[in-house]
């Protein structure tokens, strides 16, 4: 259990790692729009080439990126299965009430590719950007909303704190588990009633200590006169650089190409 599992951030020195988080978030958004626009084989081929190029530039092992689609695989299989069956069109093969059509295959293939590319693309964002950077990027992108009375900094602070404490809590769970094991606790029964009983010796101390931490943190924040009304400065302010411009131009051009091809 350590920070490497959470947020999946893989430290590196590639160009992609060095981009401003806002650029990466917006590019990821653009990537999703591009994928929605794509609905032809040639389009998806171009998408695949673009994605491959990004993966190579990011110097993240392609195997790790491919592994990120594992959790959504059931959804992909499920949706494409029903798409294959229920799309009407030129029947290729039929048995009982099931009909497989050419259109069905095409639609489900596009849908699957869209989902898979989407997840791979956004996993590049999380692989190359630390969670702190992502939150400060989101905060900065949402800051225009402050004019409408949305307290973006409060929100960002909450998210940052929540994320910050994930590794701490997972460490805590491990500690409590060890302590209960030392008192003869057994984890991993098959019976559901026993499983529920097993949770209590971990959950109660965990909740208790979370409250303790929350109180400690509140005191610490108050002691430092933390106040959202004051405009806060950052240790590492986000500044767009030349490579962000390059990245923006390249991805916009690519989006334009896809748009032209599809019409």
């Amino acid at each position: 259990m350590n920070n490497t599992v959470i947020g999946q951030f893989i430290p590196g020195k590639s160009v992609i790692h060095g981009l401003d988080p806002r650029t990466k978030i917006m590019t990821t958004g653009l990537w999703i729009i591009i994928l929605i626009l794509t609905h032809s084989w040639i389009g998806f081929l171009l998408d695949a080439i673009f994605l491959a190029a990004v993966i190579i530039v990011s110097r993240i092992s392609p195997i790790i990126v491919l592994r990120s689609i594992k959790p959504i695989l059931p959804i992909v299989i499920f949706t494409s299965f029903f798409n294959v069956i229920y799309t009407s069109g030129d029947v290729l093969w039929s048995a009982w009430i099931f009909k497989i059509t050419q259109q069905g295959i095409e639609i489900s293939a596009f849908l699957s590719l869209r989902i898979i590319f989407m997840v791979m693309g956004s996993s590049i964002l999380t692989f190359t950007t630390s969670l702190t950077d992502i939150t400060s990027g989101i905060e900065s992108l949402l800051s225009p909303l402050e004019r409408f009375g949305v307290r973006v900094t409060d929100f960002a602070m909450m998210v940052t704190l929540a994320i910050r404490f994930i590794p701490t809590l997972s460490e805590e769970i491990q500690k409590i588990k060890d302590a209960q094991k030392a008192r003869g606790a057994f984890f991993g029964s098959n019976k559901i009633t026993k499983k529920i009983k097993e949770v209590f010796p971990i959950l109660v101390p965990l909740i208790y200590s979370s409250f303790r931490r929350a109180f400690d943190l509140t005191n610490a924040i108050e002691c430092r006169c933390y106040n959202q009304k004051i405009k806060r400065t950052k240790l590492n302010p986000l500044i767009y650089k030349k490579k962000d411009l390059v990245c923006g131009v390249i991805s916009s051009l690519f989006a334009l190409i896809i748009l032209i091809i599809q019409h």
Partner: protein
Amino acid sequence: MSLLSIENVDYSYAKKTTFEKHVLKKLSLKIEPGSFIGIIGHTGSGKSTLIKILNGLLKPDAGTILYKGENIWSKNFDLRNFHLDVGVSFQYPEHQLFCDTVKKDIEYGLINKGVPKEVYESKIKKTLNIVGLSESYLEKSPFQLSGGEMRKVALAGTIVLDPEVLILDEPTAGLDPKSTQQIYDSLKTYQAQTNSSIIVVSHSMEDVSEYVTDIVALDDGQILLQGKPDQVFDNAEKLKKVGLDVPITTNILRLLAKDNPSVNTNIYRYEDTKLEISRLLKDAILK
């Protein structure tokens, strides 16, 4: 044959990643019945890992752990019972409390061990006596208690299982001197009653020298020094190099010895220090 022994144990965290950390290096240690061992070491010297290895919570990458001559990682060894025979109380054990009454919390281990219900009461009574809590605590909620009392309840939850080896990670961290003394006194009482082995991990040289019979000083996953307190504290230079020290009372005596060679500098307990200083004072008055 030792009660519990580990031989050439190696352990690394986050193996085969960039975060890999070699914590224990070819470490061997023998624990005899009835010994009171203090493990001292700088933060990150591998103390906490060593505890988990001793208790069978972590499996070493290499090396063997023998309990009463049996390899604990062999296939048909009952590891779960072993966890109970080698009781561990981790740092801040009060964080493991979860029941609504102190009684239930102390019983938790007994239930897991499968002890017959009839003996619960006598066992709990005996344990409360050892840790110095009155029976009026049994029906209280553990979350209402003070830090020191919670620590004692947690300790009782481990002691009630009659472990043959009792391992404590920083049992007195964050406690006031009085509670510290009470905790160590309960450990002494427990040992006197059962002749079990006790291992204490501590940062406090004063506590260690006051109570233990043997000291193991760890540095960077290896044993730096091992032996009786006087043997270990004889190597003050070596200890200071790795961020450890001799007890403060010994330091004072060693400073005094610079002006007065007759001062005995191999004294580690408060009581002995007091005697030595009053002897020096008497000598000074007589002169």
